[in-house]
């Protein structure tokens, strides 16, 4: 019984970690769109290239953080959550 419950729990945690990593798709799309617009802006005003590049780099770094939050949640689900849930399950089955 305990083994079955732990197997289901670990499977669900793995699934959760995978779902958390979906957060990594959004920033890529957002960054891509932002850089495309930056290209257009530089095409119109080539003299402000360095300003636009600096702002773009910082903006992309901010967008990137959302994906990193997902990554951190996934890592916590893989490494920390199993220990916690195993303890809870053992207590419940006792």
């Amino acid at each position, binding site marked *: 019984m305990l083994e079955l419950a732990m197997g289901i729990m670990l499977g669900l945690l793995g699934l959760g970690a995978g779902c958390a*990593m979906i957060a*990594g*798709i959004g*920033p*890529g*799309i957002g*960054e*891509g*769109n932002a*850089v*495309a*617009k*930056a*290209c*257009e802006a*530089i*095409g119109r*005003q080539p003299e*402000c*290239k*360095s*300003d*636009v*590049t*600096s*702002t*773009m*780099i*910082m903006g*992309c*770094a*901010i967008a*990137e*953080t959302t*994906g*990193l939050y997902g*990554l*951190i949640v*996934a*890592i*916590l689900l*893989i*490494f*920390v959550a199993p220990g916690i849930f195993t303890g809870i399950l053992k207590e419940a089955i006792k």
Partner: protein
Amino acid sequence: MPGMDPAVKKETGYIAVWVVLLSLVMEAVFLLVRKWDLPVLFGNLGGAVIAIGNFWLMAVTVSKAIEKGKPEEAATRVKATATFRLAGCALLCVLLIAVFKTNLYATVIPLLFPRIGIAFRPMIDRKRGVQPPGTEEGSDLID
């Protein structure tokens, strides 16, 4: 490095300084709560290298994509590399934690340090009297 955009160098340097400063603060906190050991130090080092490396790769990709000047090509390139970079970060973090047995929290927390550095950027610029791009007098960027 020769041929690198000056903006990339400047911003990566700024982020690296913040990551180092915040890493020192984190180490101090671990010392204060008496949880400091070698896995914490190595985890912090690994996490900091991943955070700075990820930022540098992103900055290089963005500057190269902007240099080419083709919006569609730039968007595709940045989208593809963002996914690969995140996967690389995940892989390296898992490798550090699972194989090299570094402290999980000390490895993962430095990934968020660049964001903290960026959050403080406007405050530092204001103190140094640097105006944000496009807000200078007579600038065409603000309509």
